[in-house]
């Protein structure tokens, strides 16, 4: 096979795998930010928590991979409910600054908590035997785990799409994003909806953090280090949509991989420049509602 084509295929492959992780972590942030207008810098904390729970269950207690992922996701969703009730709720509609500060406080705390319980180094993550090694897709081989990531990411994206477009819950969320007052006056319990959406978004982040532990290593600084990327996905994609962040995550994942592979000396510089251009061109993001 031609060398250039082969390089393009691997960039595309690894880029899309990275994009799936970015999307899973960030899509919840897009929904909650669009719904509640809340600048939540601490969203990565939920992803990190998911990753920590999952790897701990797997390595320390020998729980199977699939069960660990499910338990970690549920645990984070359960954790998100009281956080939303007691810390986030009082700040709905408050100054952006207060929201930024409170969530930054949470990020700082998560860094110390991660170090306290799990030590300063990254958590080891070994995919189960069935998902490790290489897989032959007919024309060439790919790392099995990343193929699995892309596949499960694609399934989740489709489910999310259908969920938001076809279910009652999805319709309620869309209504509340578009016009909260109107949604309230037709009898939607937005307060309950917010809690649900927040827990759901956090659970998705936990899922992304857990499944993506192979790409974005789980360490104490997780929520801080990757914050910029999560925010870029949301801001470039547009708030309150699930399609926007998907396109943005693909764009970011593939271009990040491509630049790091082709022009490592420029590093992430281009990504940031591109983000700036897009945000200036469309301040509400590519798919944001005016």
């Amino acid at each position, binding site marked *: 096979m031609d060398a250039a084509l082969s390089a393009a295929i691997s960039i595309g492959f690894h880029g899309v795998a990275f994009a799936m992780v970015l999307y899973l972590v960030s899509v919840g942030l897009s929904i909650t930010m669009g719904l509640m207008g809340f600048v939540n810098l601490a969203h990565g904390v939920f992803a990190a928590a998911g990753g920590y729970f999952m790897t701990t269950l797997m390595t320390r207690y020998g729980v199977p991979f699939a069960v660990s992922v499910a338990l970690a996701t549920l645990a984070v969703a359960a954790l998100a409910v009281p956080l939303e009730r007691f810390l986030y709720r009082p700040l709905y509609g408050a100054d952006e600054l207060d929201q930024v500060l409170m969530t*930054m406080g949470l990020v700082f705390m998560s*860094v110390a908590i991660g170090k*306290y319980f799990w030590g300063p180094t990254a958590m080891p993550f070994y995919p189960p035997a069935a998902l490790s090694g290489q897989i032959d897709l007919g024309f060439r081989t790919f790392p099995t785990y990343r193929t699995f990531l892309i596949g499960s990411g694609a399934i989740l994206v489709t489910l999310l799409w259908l969920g938001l477009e076809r279910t009652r819950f999805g319709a309620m969320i869309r209504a509340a994003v578009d016009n909260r007052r109107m949604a309230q006056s037709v009898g939607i319990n937005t307060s309950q909806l917010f809690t649900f959406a927040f827990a759901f978004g956090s659970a998705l982040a936990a899922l992304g953090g857990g499944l993506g532990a192979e790409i974005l290593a789980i360490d104490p600084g997780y929520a801080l280090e990757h914050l910029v990327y999560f925010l870029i996905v949301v*801001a470039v994609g547009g708030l309150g949509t699930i399609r926007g962040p998907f396109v943005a995550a693909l764009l970011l994942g593939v271009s990040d991989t491509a630049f790091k592979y082709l022009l490592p000396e420029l590093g992430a510089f281009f990504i940031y420049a591109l983000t700036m251009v897009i945000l200036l061109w469309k301040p509400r993001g590519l798919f944001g509602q005016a």
Partner: protein
Amino acid sequence: MTAKSAAHTIATFARRHRLRPMEALPWVLAVAAYFVFPDYLALGAQILATLLFGLSADLVLGYAGIVTLGHAAFYGVGAYTAGYLAAHGVGSPIIGLIAAMVAAGAVGFISGLIILRTQGLSILMLTLVVCVMLQEAANKMTSITGGADGLQGMEVQPVLGMFRFDMYGHTAYWYALGVLFLGWAVTRTIVHSSFGRSLTGIRENVARMNAIGTPVFFRLVTIYTISAMLAGAAGALIAETTQLVALNVLSVDLSGTILVMIILGGVGRLYGAFIGVPLYMIAQDRFSTIDPTYWYFWIGLLLVLVVAFARGGILGMADAVLRRFKRSP
């Protein structure tokens, strides 16, 4: 409104910008600290430089109401400018300081022209992106910045050709105090000027300020540039007094930390930084020697509590207490 109360109101406004005796307190304390804590002058100089950084951030955040997550961009540009000059034969600290202010001001002006057109989440994102972009650039341009190893070989000459930087920090302390004083004088003049008042107006109600004909965008760019220059001066101070510049001067962490410091003291009140910055840095110096890992936990918890219970910071709380005393004679 009666004529008497109107006159009273006018008198109150006229008195607002007059120097009060209390305002000498920080300077008296700073001079006293020099004699009382001769072993901590190096830390003292760092606190004074960071205070200037805090003042500059408060101008943008507290007065103009621009929520920025990338103020370290200007601090870092200042630090690298001063550091680069000192490493390449231009060792005069004053020239380094001025060059740093010009460079940081230029970055502030240009980025301000671009990003201050947006609002809300976009502006937050854009300030953040400018900062990480500059950090990434500094990281990759190793021939100029030294990359991840930091800038090597700074040689800073004596201040004004007379006062050599010593290892105890005597010169550093007075130099930083002098620059801070000038920065404070500028900041104080700005916030009490009609220009400064119009910034508060923009923070409180952009639509109304637009309606009464204030050139909002222009005002924001102006204050953003001034604030960037002051932040650049602070960065230059740190670079010259520690003779060290590393990538962390451009980090998002630092942008967040400076916000934390001024929030602790009280935002938009000029003296918030004077309380918050020393408090934070002294506490960090004490606690991080005992327990560096968990410092972040306590500071995070403090932030959450400040937002939940004490939005005005320490000065805000002090105000509330004073008001209660005055009301109950």
